[in-house]
């Protein structure tokens, strides 16, 4: 009897105990393990209020009635949001209080043909915007731009060096060097307390951005710079000012005026753009498809803080500056070679660590392409790469993918 009772008790105790244990564990660790996603940030929008007097003045102005009378209500319409760009003929009386708080507007340029646009009520921090004098009626659509017919050909200068960044030919007495430095005269100016050591000016070698053949060098250009700027497109038609107050929702409803789906889509787009911007800036690991794990230039270092895009670009440019493919065969130039290299704490590459990881070309072309890549690493790394000290663990092991593509072949 007792055994049966205990058996029944045990079962119920087990059930009850298990339930309590789950509840206790949930209370203790639920927030840690299963923390709910943070509630979405409430969208905050500034809401402007409109007094009756201001509304009447606004309505009168939009109705085309000229009035120079000040509003009866002397209270400052601090939150009145006027039309952002007034139409030139519209004459809206600015409230005095607002005008006092607003910096004096700049005069409109040369009101010869049409009257100068008058000031309109503005918010406390808003700046009155002068309307420029149109020289021609605004076009409904994009207008063609006139060009100067000329036989003068704007083209890249032919140079022996083809580099991503064009460089002018250095002066005759300036030696070529990768690093640009100013000339420092041996004779210091009288007011200079310290005489600096003499330093010769150097300049990067002349370079152009593409191979300029004789044919392209003499090719006639179709056009030069435009003789006039584009005519501005006409502004979208304003909504009927009379019907506007009736159609527009109340300012207090503005924050919730958007439909839920539109609001969600906007938020999603904002989140996506934000995530992209943050990911670009800090290279934060982000979930991505498996086939994009080896996306070039987005490698991740597990052992150190991520490098910013600027830091990676600086390293990339530093190697590319010495990556010379001019003497390679076309097959070697097309080869995509992946090279692994270890960078020492002194930011210089360890020569013995440079190894070929993979290649897309034949053995002969791979060898030439790899040697060119190794020369680039060793040459431009001989003085140390521009790398942040605090991220040593991140850039200590590098995987460099040399891929020229078919450009310039």
């Amino acid at each position, binding site marked *: 009897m007792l055994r049966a009772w205990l058996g029944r008790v045990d079962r119920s105790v087990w059930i009850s105990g298990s339930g309590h244990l789950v509840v206790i564990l949930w209370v203790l660790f639920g927030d840690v393990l299963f923390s709910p996603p943070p509630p979405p940030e409430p969208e905050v929008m500034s809401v402007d209020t409109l007094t009756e007097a201001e509304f009447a003045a606004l309505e009168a102005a939009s109705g085309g009635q000229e009035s120079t009378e000040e509003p009866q209500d002397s209270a400052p319409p601090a939150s009145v949001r006027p039309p952002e760009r007034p139409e030139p003929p519209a004459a809206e009386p600015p409230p005095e209080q607002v005008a006092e708080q607003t910096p004096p507007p700049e005069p409109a340029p040369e009101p010869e043909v049409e009257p100068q646009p008058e000031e309109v009520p503005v918010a406390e921090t808003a700046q009155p915007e002068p309307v420029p004098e149109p020289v021609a009626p605004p076009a409904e659509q994009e207008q063609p731009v006139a060009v100067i017919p000329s036989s003068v050909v704007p083209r890249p200068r032919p140079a022996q060096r083809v580099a991503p960044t064009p460089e002018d030919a250095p002066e005759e007495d300036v030696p070529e060097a990768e690093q640009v430095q100013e000339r420092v005269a041996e004779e210091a100016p009288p007011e200079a307390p310290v005489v600096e050591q003499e330093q010769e000016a150097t300049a990067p070698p002349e370079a152009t951005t593409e191979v300029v053949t004789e044919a392209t060098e003499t090719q006639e250009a179709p056009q030069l710079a435009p003789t006039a700027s584009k005519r501005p497109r006409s502004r979208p038609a304003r909504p009927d000012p009379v019907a506007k107050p009736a159609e527009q929702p109340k300012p207090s409803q503005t924050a919730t005026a958007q439909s839920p789906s539109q609001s969600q889509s906007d938020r999603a787009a904002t989140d996506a753009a934000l995530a992209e911007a943050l990911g670009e800036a800090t290279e934060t690991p982000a979930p991505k498809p498996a086939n994009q794990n080896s996306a070039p230039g987005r490698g991740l270092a597990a052992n150190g803080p991520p490098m910013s895009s600027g830091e990676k670009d600086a390293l990339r440019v530093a190697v590319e500056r010495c990556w010379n493919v001019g003497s390679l065969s076309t097959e070697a130039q097309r080869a995509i070679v992946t090279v692994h290299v270890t960078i020492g704490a002194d930011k210089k590459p360890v020569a013995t660590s440079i190894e070929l990881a993979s290649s897309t070309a034949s053995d002969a072309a791979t060898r030439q392409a790899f040697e060119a890549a*190794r020369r680039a690493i060793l040459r431009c790394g001989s003085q140390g790469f521009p790398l942040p000290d605090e991220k040593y663990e991140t850039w200590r092991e590098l995987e460099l993918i040399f891929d020229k593509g078919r450009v310039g072949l």
Partner: protein
Amino acid sequence: MSRLRQFFTAVAAVAALAAPAMVATKAEARLTLNLGNPVVEPMPFALPTFVDEGGAGDLAAKISQVVAADLAGTGLFEQIPSTAYIQQITSFGAPVSYPDWQAINAQALVTGAVQTSGGQVVVKFRLHDVFANGEMGEGLQFVGTTDSWRRMAHKVADAVYSRITGETGYFDSRVVYVSESGPKNQRQKRLAVMDYDGANTSFLTDSASIVLAPRFSPTGDRILFTSYSSGFPQIYLMDVGSLAIRGLGEQPGTMTFAPRFSPDGRTVVFSLERGGNTDIYSLDIGSGQLSQLTNSPAIETAPSFSPDGSQIVFESDRSGNQQIYIMPARGGEPTRISGGAGRYGTPVWSPRGDYIAFTKQNQGRFHIGVMLTDGTEEKLLTASYLDEGPTWSPNGRVIMFTRQDAGGEPALYSVDVSGRNLRKVATTGAASDPAWSPLLP
């Protein structure tokens, strides 16, 4: 015991699961960068005068100069002046102080030595990758007669070029061309042959009759050309060694011209004019069998085989003006590959098979250009009053052609296939119609 086995089994399972994760962590520990904007500029190289190891005299300096000129002449390399050298190479076997050469930004270093004895010259060299602190390949030496010292130098340059670029060189090669002299109304044209750089010119024919369009055989021992010795243009075959000449495909009432060898050297394709119509024919040199490859009322000429001998590219005006077509080597329906504005002619298939060089005339100017074999990626390399007749270097990297300015004399020019390094070739007098030989054995 059973529990112990279970324990080890569990440990092994955990290790098996954890191993890939550890490998992945190791792989991801590298910072990956993609580089896509290289510079294209001549590679600086140093070439100290080769060491005289006995009897060479000034030959060592001459050979050094030719090697350096070969390399620098490609536009792919730039010689560092010897005045900048820090280390002086006085012995071929002496160790190289790489930091001294790195300091002057020499990326490649060529050291060598020359020895002569009994009419024989021995030239040996080493190529060093300065920034890798080691040699590129092993040392190499060439042996020849003293008279052939220029060929020894070209051989050295070819080896250096090949090791750095990964493609064969073209320095130890010759060019046959038409040497022109005399006034316009009494022009004398002779076949001449020279080294690729203009040295060692010799004449193969006299000026008794006008000759045109010489073409080397694939082995370089024979030359096809067109001569007016019979009063009409006819193609002839010359043996370079003996200078013996014999006619090919002679048929009464016809004119033959624009010949070119097949890659195996046993067949010649050429244009044959009969009754006012010009078509392309092939001739088996051994049997004399003649085959007609095209049959249209248009003018079809300038045939050139693909390197594998399976196709022929030629020019035809069957569409109304000169365009470039490709057809099977045994004839058949041709496919037009040129499509741009202007007229296209004298197509020549690259030895590498990737490009077709051509002459283009458009808006009153002549161009030498290249396009892929399907007609895409057309690129014009030159532009002048008159550019025509391209011929490929043996490695397919350089094109030589004829250029004539208004009122001037024709001359030979060369240009890299990329359009860079346009240079005038030194010749003895006016020159036209160049044809590059294969690399000499």
